[in-house]
C-alpha cells in the first residue's frame, strides 16, 4: 500500500533566563530541592500580579528571527484553561490568536548522500510558562507529589508545518533546531533535564488506485525526550497506522477517526493511547487581564537582528569557502556546537592551515574527548596553544609526528601552555634540525654504509630511499623527513 508519511513537530524549549517568565523566582533546574523557587505569582495565589520578563521576550524574538519568522508588531498573552495538579492557577499563560511570531522556516539536509536540503516550514513560535512537575508513586499506592520549582519558567513553543516525510527527517529537523538554539545561546537544550521537549503529529496519506489520497487519523505522540526516541516512536507509529488502516479502513474524520494522543514508552519502543485531549475550544482561551500587550517596533527588531550570532548553516558555507574544507568536515566541526567551531577557527587562523587545523580538531581532539570521556568545554589544550603547536608544523619547525607526541604530552595533566611546548621540544630534542650541513654529513655516512641500497636506487628502485631516510632520521633527531628525502635523492643522484 503506497503512502506518504506526514510529520509535524511541536518543540518546547526552556529559555535560559535567570528568573521565571512572570516573577522573580529563580528559573534554575533544581529537582533536588522541591518547592524552594516559588512565590505568590507562580503559585497562583490571589492578588498576585505577573510582569513579563524582558529577557525572555528578547530570547524569543532572537529565536524567531533565526527561524526566519515574521515578528508581529502587536502581541498579547492569553489564559489556556485546564486542570492538572502541576498547574496551580488552573490555567497556563500562553499565546493564542496573536503569537509574537509566525511563518518561518528552518532548512535541513534531507539527503546526506547528495547534500540535498529542504525548508521545513515554521507555523509559529510563541512564549508561555512551563508547568510544575508531578512525581508519581510507580507502585500506584500513595499520593502523587508536586514540585512547583519549574512552574512559570519561560518556554518557547515552536510549531512546525507537517513538512517532514520520514522519521529520520524529523530527527534531523530536531537536531538542526537544537544546534541553532545552542548557537544562539537561548537554551541549553538539555533533553535529559527537559529543557528541550518534543511532541509529534503524525499521520499517513494512503495513495488510492484512482490517484487520490486518504488521510489516516492524526496522532499526537508525546514524551519524545531523546533524538533516538523520536526516530523509534515515529517509525513505530507509522507502521501501526498503516496496519490499523489495512485492518479497519478508518480514515481521518470518520467515526473513531478523530485526532488522538499517544504516549511513547521508551522501554517497549511502542506508543500507547493517552487521555483524550480536550479540543482547542475547551481550553477556553481568553486574554489575560493581568498582563499587558507588547508592541514591537522595526527598530527593536533590527537591533535584535544585528546582535544575532552566525547561524550554523551560514558557518558551514563560510568554513567551506574560507578554509577549503569538504562539506563533510565542516558538518562535523559545526555540528559539535558553537564553541567547537570557534576553537577550530582560532586554531586555523593561528597556524595558517585550515585543513591541518580541521584534521586535528576532528580526529585527534574528538578521539581524545571520547577516550577520556570529556566534554569539549573540559578539553585542556586551549586554541592559542594548539594553534601555536600546529603553526610550528606549518613553519617547518616541527614534524607532524613530533607535534603528535607533544600533543599527547600536553594532555598528561601537567599543564598545556606554549612555554610547555618549548620545554618538551627541548627535553626530547624534537626541533627540526635546520643545519643542512649536519644532515649532509649523516647522509654521506649512511650512503657509504649502504652500497646495495645505492645500487637499487640507481637501478630505478625509488623504494630504496625509504630505508635510507629511516637511518638518517635515527641519527639526526628532529629532521624534517621531507627535507631529508629531497637531500637524499639529490645526494644519490650525484653518485
Amino acid at each position, binding site marked *: 500500500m503506497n503512502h506518504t508519511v506526514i510529520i509535524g513537530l511541536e518543540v518546547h524549549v526552556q529559555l535560559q533566563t535567570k*528568573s521565571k517568565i512572570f516573577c522573580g*523566582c529563580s528559573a534554575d533546574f533544581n529537582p533536588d530541592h522541591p518547592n524552594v523557587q516559588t512565590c505568590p505569582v507562580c503559585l497562583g495565589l490571589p492578588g498576585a500580579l505577573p510582569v513579563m520578563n*524582558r529577557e525572555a521576550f528578547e530570547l524569543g524574538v532572537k529565536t524567531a528571527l533565526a527561524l526566519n519568522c515574521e515578528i508581529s508588531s502587536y502581541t498579547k498573552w492569553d489564559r489556556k*484553561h485546564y486542570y492538572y495538579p502541576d498547574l496551580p492557577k488552573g490555567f497556563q499563560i500562553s499565546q493564542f490568536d496573536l503569537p509574537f511570531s509566525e511563518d518561518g522556516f528552518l532548512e535541513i539536509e534531507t539527503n546526506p548522500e547528495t547534500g540535498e536540503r529542504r525548508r521545513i516550514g515554521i507555523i509559529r513560535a510563541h512564549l508561555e510558562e512551563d508547568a510544575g512537575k508531578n512525581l508519581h508513586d510507580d507502585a500506584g499506592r500513595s499520593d502523587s507529589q508536586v514540585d512547583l520549582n519549574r512552574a512559570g519558567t519561560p518556554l518557547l513553543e515552536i510549531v512546525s508545518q507537517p513538512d517532514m516525510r520520514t522519521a529520520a527527517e524529523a530527527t534531523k529537523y530536531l537536531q538542526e533546531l537544537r544546534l541553532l538554539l545552542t548557537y544562539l545561546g537561548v537554551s541549553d537544550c538539555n533533553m535529559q533535564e527537559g529543557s528541550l521537549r518534543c511532541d509529534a503529529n503524525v499521520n499517513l496519506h494512503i495513495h488510492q488506485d484512482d490517484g487520490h489520497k486518504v488521510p489516516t487519523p492524526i496522532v499526537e505522540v508525546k514524551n519524545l525526550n531523546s533524538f533516538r526516541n523520536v526516530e523509534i516512536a515515529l517509525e513505530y507509529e507509522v507502521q501501526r497506522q498503516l496496519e490499523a488502516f489495512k485492518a479497519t479502513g478508518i480514515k481521518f474524520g470518520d467515526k473513531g477517526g478523530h485526532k488522538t494522543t499517544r504516549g511513547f514508552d521508551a522501554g517497549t519502543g511502542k506508543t500507547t493511547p493517552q487521555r483524550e485531549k480536550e479540543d482547542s475550544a475547551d481550553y477556553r482561551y481568553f486574554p489575560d487581564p493581568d498582563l499587558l500587550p507588547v508592541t514591537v517596533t522595526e527598530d527593536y527588531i533590527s537591533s535584535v537582528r544585528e546582535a544575532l550570532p552566525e547561524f550554523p548553516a551560514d558557518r558551514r558555507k563560510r568554513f567551506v569557502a574560507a578554509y577549503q574544507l569538504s562539506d563533510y568536515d565542516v558538518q562535523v566541526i559545526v555540528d559539535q556546537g558553537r564553541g567547537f567551531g570557534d576553537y577550530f577557527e582560532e586554531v586555523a587562523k593561528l597556524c595558517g592551515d585550515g585543513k591541518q587545523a580541521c584534521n586535528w580538531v576532528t580526529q585527534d581532539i574528538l578521539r581524545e574527548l571520547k577516550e577520556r570521556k570529556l566534554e569539549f568545554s573540559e578539553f585542556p589544550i586551549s586554541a592559542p596553544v594548539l594553534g601555536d603547536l600546529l603553526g610550528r608544523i606549518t613553519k617547518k619547525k616541527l614534524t607532524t609526528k613530533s607535534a603528535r607526541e607533544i600533543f599527547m604530552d600536553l594532555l598528561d595533566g601537567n599543564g598545556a601552555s606554549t612555554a610547555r611546548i618549548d620545554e618538551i621540544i627541548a627535553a626530547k630534542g624534537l626541533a627540526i634540525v635546520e643545519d643542512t650541513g649536519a644532515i649532509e654529513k649523516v647522509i654521506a655516512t649512511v650512503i657509504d654504509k649502504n652500497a646495495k641500497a645505492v645500487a637499487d636506487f640507481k637501478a630505478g628502485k625509488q623504494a630504496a630511499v625509504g630505508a635510507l631516510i629511516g637511518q638518517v632520521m635515527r641519527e639526526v633527531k628532529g629532521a624534517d623527513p621531507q627535507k631529508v628525502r629531497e637531500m637524499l635523492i639529490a645526494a644519490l643522484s650525484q653518485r
Partner: protein
Amino acid sequence: MPADELTRDDVLKVAQLARLSLTDAEVGAYQAKLAQMLDYIQILHEVNTDDVEPMAHAVEVQNVFRRDETLPSLTPVEALANAPKTDGRYFLVPQILDH
C-alpha cells in the same frame, strides 16, 4: 448560539470543564442564568462595529517589562502553608492515574 438553544448538556459540559459538580436543581438554575447572559451578548451583537478597530486588551498601557533579576522566593514551609496535604517537601495530590 441563541439562548433558547442552551441545553442542560451544555451546562453540564461547562461545569465539567470548570470541575464543578452541580445538583439537578442547580443545572436548571444555571441553564436559565447562562441563557440570560447569552441574550445580553445577542444585544451587543446588534451594534454595528464595521468602523471599530478590534481590541485585544481593555487597558491602553503596553510594554511593561521587568528586568531578568531573581528575587527571594518563599520558603518551602510558606509555599506549602495553604496546601490541603503535603509531606513537608511536596504538595500531595491524589494519585494521578493517567500518566
